[in-house]
């Protein structure tokens, strides 16, 4: 029996309504990456992680458990799980299963991004424990009432801190804040830019030329919805990186399968497998610009090929 769509969507919406995130995490886990960076609290321009990189190790641990349940009779008890989750944050326990090495890995990517922005001379703060998840998954699943309330909460937070510009670090938060929020929050006028756009505009110069070739995997949302296609290529190209492009690239990129992980894990893995085969045909050293693409394609690669986040290459090339 497939995972019960209704109950899983119910848990995600309940969590967003009650705990302000589809998978609530402790403040210690969401802000750990920023330790020692001396980022000011708040400010007109802020970096906004939307907890996406921090969530991946938790999602990874959880997806492992969920895919074991898919096609078992236990799926019938998911309704009970939703009832219990109203009183006890069940996802908290999943968080305990998250790998420490994986958490350090994703924290490093966020540090890379913040350090690159600093190096580019961008003056920005961070909302630390007050930062919230964007609501992206609830928006995608069409639970619009819960999403609208949450979007308003995030907008109020920006108002409280006088935020006028947000620098995002992943395509899902970028798309949710830049394209969805204005449709749900009256007068939403915060400027939203991905760090890749900000870095490309800054004119930041590399400190070393990298004699390496990468195979670039475009994110669907960045490429087709948000116009982030040339910026990563420009940043890598300036550093001498040779880019291998798969047949399906840029605006015709192929999905990594990640959006299906919570409801249909087996199908998600099938799509990731198809995409990794296409990427492997184009070359090695696969590079992603989204944490969801990264985790899905890494698993699908099964160690046959390296899959890394673009921030690691940029950090090396631009000397941070």
């Amino acid at each position, binding site marked *: 029996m497939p995972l019960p769509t209704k109950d899983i969507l*119910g848990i995600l919406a309940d969590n967003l309504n009650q705990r302000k995130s589809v998978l609530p995490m402790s403040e210690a886990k969401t802000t750990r990456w920023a330790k020692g960076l001396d980022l000011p609290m708040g400010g007109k321009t802020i970096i906004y992680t939307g907890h996406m990189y921090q969530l991946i190790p938790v999602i990874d641990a959880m997806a492992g458990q969920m895919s074991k349940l898919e096609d078992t009779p236990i799926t019938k008890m998911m309704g009970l799980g939703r009832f219990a989750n109203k009183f006890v944050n069940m996802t908290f326990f999943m968080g305990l299963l998250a790998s420490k090495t994986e958490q350090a890995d994703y924290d490093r990517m966020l540090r890379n991004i913040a350090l690159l922005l600093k190096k580019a001379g961008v003056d920005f703060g961070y909302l630390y424990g007050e930062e919230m998840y964007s609501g992206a998954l609830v928006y995608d*699943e069409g639970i*619009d009432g819960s999403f609208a309330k949450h979007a308003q909460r995030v907008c109020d937070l920006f108002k409280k801190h006088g935020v006028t510009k947000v620098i995002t670090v992943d395509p899902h938060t970028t798309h949710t804040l830049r394209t969805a929020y204005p449709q749900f929050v009256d007068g939403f006028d915060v400027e939203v830019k991905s760090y890749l756009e900000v870095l490309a505009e800054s004119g930041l110069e590399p400190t070393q030329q990298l004699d390496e070739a990468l195979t670039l995997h475009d994110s*669907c949302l960045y490429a*087709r*919805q948000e116009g982030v296609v040339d910026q990563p290529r420009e940043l890598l190209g300036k550093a001498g990186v040779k880019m291998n492009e798969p047949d399906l690239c840029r605006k015709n990129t*192929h999905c990594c399968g990640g*959006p299906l992980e919570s409801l249909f894990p087996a199908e998600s893995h099938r*799509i990731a497998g198809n995409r990794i085969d296409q990427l492997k045909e184009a070359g090695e050293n696969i590079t992603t610009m989204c944490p969801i693409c990264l985790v899905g394609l890494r698993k699908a690669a099964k160690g046959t090929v390296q899959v890394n986040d673009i921030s690691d290459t940029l950090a090396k090339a631009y000397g941070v």
Partner: protein
Amino acid sequence: MPKVSSKLAAAVKCSEEFNADACMHCGTCTAVCPMGYEILPRKLFRYVQVGLEDKVKENISSIYSCLLCGMCSENCPAEVNIPENIRFLRKYINENEFNLS
């Protein structure tokens, strides 16, 4: 015999989000869809347009299986915003079948 649901038909008619009326049934969307399900998205939209709610309910899994990746709309000659139409259907099912809003 398939029944036409006036409720679904009315919801589609009133919606600013569901714009599949522009579809000319060329099938490009289905051909480029990474999921490879015959129902997604052209056939499904046809059911919705004529108000066949039972057919929509039979295909709830497929509706939530859409990746919202946008490969279909990128290649749609009629410029239908297909992911937004899928989101509309999910919203309809959430509200009318799952009691979720």
